[in-house]
């Protein structure tokens, strides 16, 4: 087995890792300290492992670590580097959108990807953007409210 050295920028920091060719990005990220990337199904259905790869929401459980070489990864940890919550995270907390919290990192990143591209989404667009993040606790009511509120707040600040 020939190990591979990969250079990945994670949350703005350059990381160099030795990985096995078959290593999945989910496993590598978790073992390298990014525990906010969650393991829920390992088959791309639940979205708990959602990260941003070059700004796009993707599933770490279906990405080989080798494929992240030379690319930029953002995990939930990257949204609050100094411990201060990002407005989207704040909105989730304020709107009681976090119950058990297991799906929250993935869901927040999906929402971030949406708002980065579409600052003023409709409710339908928010639901579509979150459709790949399964939640068993909230019925999605408050998460959707939180994303719409965060979008409005950003708009207001402009």
């Amino acid at each position, binding site marked *: *087995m*020939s190990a*591979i050295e990969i250079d990945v920028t994670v949350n703005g920091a350059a990381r160099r890792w030795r990985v*096995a*060719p*078959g*290593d*999945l990005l989910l496993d590598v990220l978790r073992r390298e300290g990014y525990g906010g990337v969650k393991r829920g199904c390992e*088959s*791309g259905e639940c*979205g708990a492992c*959602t990260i941003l*790869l070059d700004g*796009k*929401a*993707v*599933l770490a*459980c*279906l*990405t*080989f670590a*080798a*494929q992240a*070489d030379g690319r930029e990864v953002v995990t939930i940890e990257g949204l609050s580097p100094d411990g201060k919550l990002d407005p989207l995270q704040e909105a989730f907390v304020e709107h009681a959108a976090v119950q058990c919290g297991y799906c929250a990192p993935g869901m927040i990143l*999906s929402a971030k*990807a*949406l708002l980065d591209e579409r600052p003023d989404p409709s409710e339908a667009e928010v639901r*579509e*953007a979150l*459709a*790949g*993040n399964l939640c068993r606790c909230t019925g999605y009511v408050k998460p959707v409210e939180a994303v719409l509120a965060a979008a409005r707040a950003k708009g207001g600040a402009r």
Partner: protein
Amino acid sequence: MFDHIEVFHRPATAHEAVLLLQENGPAGRYVAGGTDLIVQGDRSIRALIDVTRMGLDYIEPRGDECVIGATATMNAIARAPLVREWAGGILARAAATCGSVQIRNMATLGGSLANGSPAADLATPLLAMEARVGLEDSAGRRSVPLTEFYAGERARGALLIEAAIPPPPQAGRAGWSFQKLGRTCCDISLVNVAAGLGLDGDGRVLWARLALGAVAPVPMRAAGAEGLLLGRTLTPELLGEAAETVAREVRPIDDVRASADYRREMAGVFTRRALRECAREAGCA
């Protein structure tokens, strides 16, 4: 768990990729988005050949065709203006229904076609538009109709390079439709239909394309129903006949998602819906 993978190649060209696959034999596999390969968890794989860094993610006009590279993602396809305007945008619509946003950011045209699922949402519109696929292997490059790809070419394991979509038929006023039935909003198709109709001023069918997915071992054209429609004026009765013909042509299976009978019936229902939408799009009520 892919602890059995011994090597991960990242070739820069298709030619390199083809050579690598040859070297590794049956234990080698191309991988693009990984959304099928990883889920399948085939433990016999020893070598992976990542084809996403070979510049095959283009979506561009070439001559009078719309050409899509094999590693263009579902999302890229769904958003590309060229694809959204081509044949009523049915390929873009199909791409937009594949799974979740995350899956659509990862899954590729090539991976989807090469995986060969009859439910692949992209395959049905490509079939209806009579697309060809460009392949490359040790025998070189060639282009085959998508039907031939499904008929046996796919099993030969050539690298998928691109899909080339010819311009839609020009006769009459055209209307296209893509319809999909799933259990929930984000679902694998239980049935999908891609249709195109060309109608003259009196609503007579000049040409008809009708493709269905998830109702046969491979995505299929409903040739019988297409033939039935030609030259006839669209009426609710004709739609009913077409639906019944399709229901006889499909060969669905029972599985945990739906029974064969239900798929058969839904093939008819969604054929009717698709043809109605085609008619509306073509400006005929």
